[in-house]
């Protein structure tokens, strides 16, 4: 047995369609069986509400008198793209305000417009014969714009890796605050309610399909950027009319230490055409697993800690290496449910009918990493290989002499086995000399917590460490924790004028 899209739309129009949310579907299939569920259910609605950085909107302001060809454009001091026709622009969600930094950004401009607030438009131009005006400043409401079309290049991620932090310091990431020593796990996504997880083969979701976008009717444009469904990371490019959006389903946010983003509510109705659709929409949180990734490692391939399902993540805690660790969702399950529910209500009322894709989305693609023509400098390219180190059992006076002779400000301290156990700086030694006390040996004054780097670490990451810990040198260590070099601010000077800054 199967149903056609026309039959389903007819039922929607005459008000007899049975519409359920993806959360209800597994129980219906369990009760009625697959064939029974196919007979009973016409539409399954899905929903997600979470941070979607790749979001933004096109605006058309209409022409001023005299007219201006806007080249640089700011909305509430957030810069918008000026490379379009005279009074068109695109504002991106993550663009930060020139004056308020991460407290206000493109996402907030969109949120304020949808909430009915006034926005200040400021623009400048060189002036041309046809567009003589050079500057303009005006206040605008959403209703004053000719068009405000949300157009998001990458939304509705099928699933997203969970994050954990094995280092001994707090990390602030786009996955939220990660406590040290595996202190918590963060995750994002609506699991069994996610649109793509209910249609992983993209039989129903494709170009032209109607959707719920931030409370307004919208449409799938096609595959999203970084679409990688082969590995379970499909994405969608979507659009919708901002003028019809609701503040309940669009919320600006600031991830501390990371930046501005937009929380987007998005739902897709799926027509229950055949048994394959029934099976796909019976997916539960238990069936969808993601990788728990160590965000303490700042590289593209971060280590996998374990696999974990959305059901485990949503339970509030998960086991990591024998310990119970609390979880935090970054997306809102409550609002994802509200999206699926409101979308179901629209369809029950007959205000949205369904369509099949006018152009399919490739369900087999795999995303490629960036093609990098130059690798960027590594620590080994610029580090000092001449190392002056000191043993922990030497006297402070010896350290002072070495610092003077070696013309350095940092002495890595090693133990009897030659492994790194601490660091002393000129400051530590001067302090010990100026306030003579009990301290006699290097081990009494050394700092035991040493931030280190390795030869193949990217210089950018080493620099990030120097800045983050407000220090000026990093010992370079090998796998056995032997010091094989030093990286200091002076070495970084080699980058300038060197072959890396072409």
């Amino acid at each position, binding site marked *: 047995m199967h149903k056609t899209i026309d039959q389903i739309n007819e039922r929607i129009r005459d008000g007899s369609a049975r519409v359920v949310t993806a959360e209800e579907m597994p129980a219906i299939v369990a009760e009625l069986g697959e064939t029974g569920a196919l007979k009973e259910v016409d539409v399954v609605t899905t929903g997600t*509400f*979470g*941070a979607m950085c790749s979001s933004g909107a096109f605006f058309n302001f209409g022409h001023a008198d005299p007219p201006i060809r806007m080249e640089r454009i700011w909305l509430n001091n957030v810069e918008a793209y000026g490379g379009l026709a005279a009074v068109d622009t695109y504002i991106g969600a993550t663009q930060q305000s020139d004056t308020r930094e991460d407290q206000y950004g493109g996402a907030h401009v969109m949120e304020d417009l949808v909430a009915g607030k006034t926005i200040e438009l400021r623009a400048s131009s060189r002036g041309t014969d046809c567009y003589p005006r050079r500057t303009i400043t005006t206040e605008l409401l959403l209703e004053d714009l000719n068009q405000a079309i949300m157009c998001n290049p990458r939304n509705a991620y099928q699933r997203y890796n969970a994050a954990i932090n094995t280092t001994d310091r707090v990390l*602030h990431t786009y996955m*939220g*605050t990660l*406590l040290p020593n595996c*202190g*918590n*796990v*963060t995750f994002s996504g609506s699991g069994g309610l996610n649109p793509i997880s209910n249609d992983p083969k993209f039989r129903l979701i494709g170009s032209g399909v109607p959707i719920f976008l931030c409370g307004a009717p919208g449409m799938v444009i096609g595959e999203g950027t970084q679409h990688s469904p082969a590995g379970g990371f499909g994405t969608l490019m979507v659009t919708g009319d901002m003028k019809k959006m609701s503040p309940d389903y669009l*919320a600006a*946010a*600031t*991830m*501390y*230490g990371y930046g501005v*983003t937009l*929380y987007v509510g998005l739902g897709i109705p799926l027509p229950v055409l055949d048994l394959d659709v029934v099976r796909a929409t019976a997916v539960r949180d238990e069936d969808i697993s993601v990788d728990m990734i160590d965000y303490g490692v700042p590289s593209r391939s971060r280590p996998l800690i374990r696999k974990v399902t959305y059901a485990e993540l949503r339970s*509030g805690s998960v086991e990591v290496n024998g310990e119970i*660790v*609390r*979880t*935090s*969702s*970054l*997306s*809102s*399950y*409550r*609002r994802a*449910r509200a999206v699926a529910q409101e979308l179901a209500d629209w369809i029950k009322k007959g205000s949205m009918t369904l369509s099949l894709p006018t152009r399919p989305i490739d369900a087999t693609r795999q995303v490629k990493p960036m093609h990098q023509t130059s690798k960027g400098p590594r620590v080994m390219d610029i580090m000092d290989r001449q190392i002056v180190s000191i043993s922990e059992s030497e006297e402070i006076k010896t350290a002072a002499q070495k610092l003077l002779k070696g013309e350095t400000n940092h002495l890595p301290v090693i133990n009897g086995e030659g492994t790194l156990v601490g660091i002393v700086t000129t400051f530590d030694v001067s302090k010990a000399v100026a306030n003579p006390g009990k301290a006699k040996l290097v081990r009494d004054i050394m700092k035991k917590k040493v931030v280190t780097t390795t030869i193949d670490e990217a210089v950018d990451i080493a620099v990030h460490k120097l800045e983050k810990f407000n220090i000026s040198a990093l010992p370079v260590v090998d796998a056995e924790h032997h010091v094989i070099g030093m990286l200091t601010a002076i070495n970084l000077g080699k980058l300038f004028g060197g072959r890396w800054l072409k």
Partner: protein
Amino acid sequence: MKLLVNFSRGKGRKPIIAQVVRDTGVLINVERAVIDSSEGEALIDVPDDQCQLVRNSMTSLGARVRMLEHGIHFNEQECVDCGACISICPNEVFSFTPDWKLALAEERCVLCGKCIEACPHQALMLPL
């Protein structure tokens, strides 16, 4: 009742909390304390009926005492019920109701401030 106590540590370095416990006989629960060489701040919990007694005793020893009637300030309007704060709070102030709405057990809050940065929607603030 929670009291926020600020004191400066002069030459004598009197252990003010211990002193008050001895003088009043009230058992004080220290929930949070930051003390450096010159000054200190402690958040203490005392039984409601002995609050005034402890307060007077601390004030007479030169401390500034403020009653904290509220825990973390929660702006429900801004909250999207994500739950980012839940795993951050050391005292399990936050949890979900069965329908995934954020619930607060305000009385457990020790105003450490850790959740404030963790909330992506700026819905949490220290009470004034």
